[in-house]
């Protein structure tokens, strides 16, 4: 196997190597790749869309269709994970573990019995050993809101600085994942449960595609935001800028929800009872 692998990678390497001597030198501003289409973006992005961050302008407007499918890819990954892993089980016969918060004594209740949820003195814990981790919990409680705020900033400020819907969505999702890791999965469900995550992911992509459809209904081509001008009470250029913001919000919503849902499914192997 190792020999076969070596031969294959040498062949692939040779194939890739063959073309390289004819490449333009690295960092050459005059290389053909930089002279045909991309100057158009650099020179016209601001006047076409009023977005100084050219990457955002190209991502959400000039090549917005790619981005819609990129969001659809991440959405389908979320659905795929759910489809593959989720185990729907009505009644749980597993044993549950509870900790008495004041004394640290652990109770083990076998065969589906349970203490009432939300009691102040007892806390349900995962079956693998979980220490009483006040420092982690308090720190994460401190960090999570700021991370979420930063995520919103990244989404909203994608027009002017690096960032945008995708990055912001991932950061927002990461904040929720942090919450789920530092506490436990059940507590995260109380904030954002499975159905809400699914709904949010579908709604996010639908917001994107719906904006495109709206443009189509208003007489433009699919995703031609300039046709939204009358709806948004602005001129065509600002309409493009606002259209970009709308779809970035959609992307952010979808990505956030999908990241969380992927984490839920992977960390509990589809059972949705115990996480990391």
């Amino acid at each position: 196997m190792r020999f076969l692998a070596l031969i294959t990678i040498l062949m692939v390497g040779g194939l890739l190597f063959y073309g390289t001597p004819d490449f333009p030198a690295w960092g050459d501003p005059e290389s053909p790749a930089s002279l045909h289409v991309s100057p158009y973006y650099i020179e016209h992005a601001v006047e076409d869309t009023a977005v100084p961050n050219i990457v955002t302008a190209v991502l959400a407007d000039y090549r917005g269709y790619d981005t819609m499918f990129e969001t659809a890819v991440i959405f389908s990954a979320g659905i795929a994970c759910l489809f593959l892993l989720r185990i729907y089980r009505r009644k749980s016969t597993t044993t549950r573990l509870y900790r008495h918060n004041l004394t640290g004594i652990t109770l083990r209740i076998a065969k589906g019995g349970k203490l009432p949820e939300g009691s102040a003195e007892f806390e349900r814990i995962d079956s693998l050993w979980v220490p009483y981790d006040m420092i982690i919990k308090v720190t994460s409680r401190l960090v999570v809101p700021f991370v979420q705020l930063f995520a919103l900033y990244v989404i909203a400020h994608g027009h002017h600085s690096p960032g945008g819907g995708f990055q912001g969505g991932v950061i927002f999702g990461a904040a929720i994942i942090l919450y789920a890791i530092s506490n436990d999965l059940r507590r995260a469900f109380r904030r954002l449960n499975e159905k809400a995550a699914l709904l949010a992911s579908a709604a996010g992509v639908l917001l994107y595609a719906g904006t495109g459809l709206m443009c189509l209904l208003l007489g433009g081509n699919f995703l031609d935001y300039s046709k939204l001008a009358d709806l948004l009470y602005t001129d065509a250029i600002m309409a493009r800028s606002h259209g970009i913001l709308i779809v970035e919000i959609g992307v952010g919503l979808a990505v956030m929800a999908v990241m969380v849902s992927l984490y839920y499914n992977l960390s509990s192997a589809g059972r949705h009872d115990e996480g990391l």
Partner: protein
Amino acid sequence: MESLLANFLAKYNYWAYIGLVMIGMYAMIAKRNLVKKIIGMNIVQTAVILFYVSIAAKKGKTIPIIAHGHEDTGHHAVQALDYISPLPHVLMLTAIVVSVATLGVALALAIKVYRQYGTLEEDEIAMRIEEQ
């Protein structure tokens, strides 16, 4: 010899990406552990992204965000040569998303395989299949 060395140094990004593709593919073919293969797959994908980012690079130019984009100081011409080309960056954002999506699905399948055979090693899985 001089020119060869200069040629080598001028394109070291491209050599690096070829190296990474080879590392990733080696892991995908020679390693028998499924998670190792998944990591190899991701290395290949990031290597491709490195290639695209290297295409976009321009020595000594600035990032593709137009400075003072919102001060209406008349029509100051934007010189395309001053900015790094944005198009490959856009494409690679998409590629990163694709790679994380693939990672998620692959890990889900790996968990499913583990649930079924109790191991992640390909040769042990083959043994389990033989036993059945």
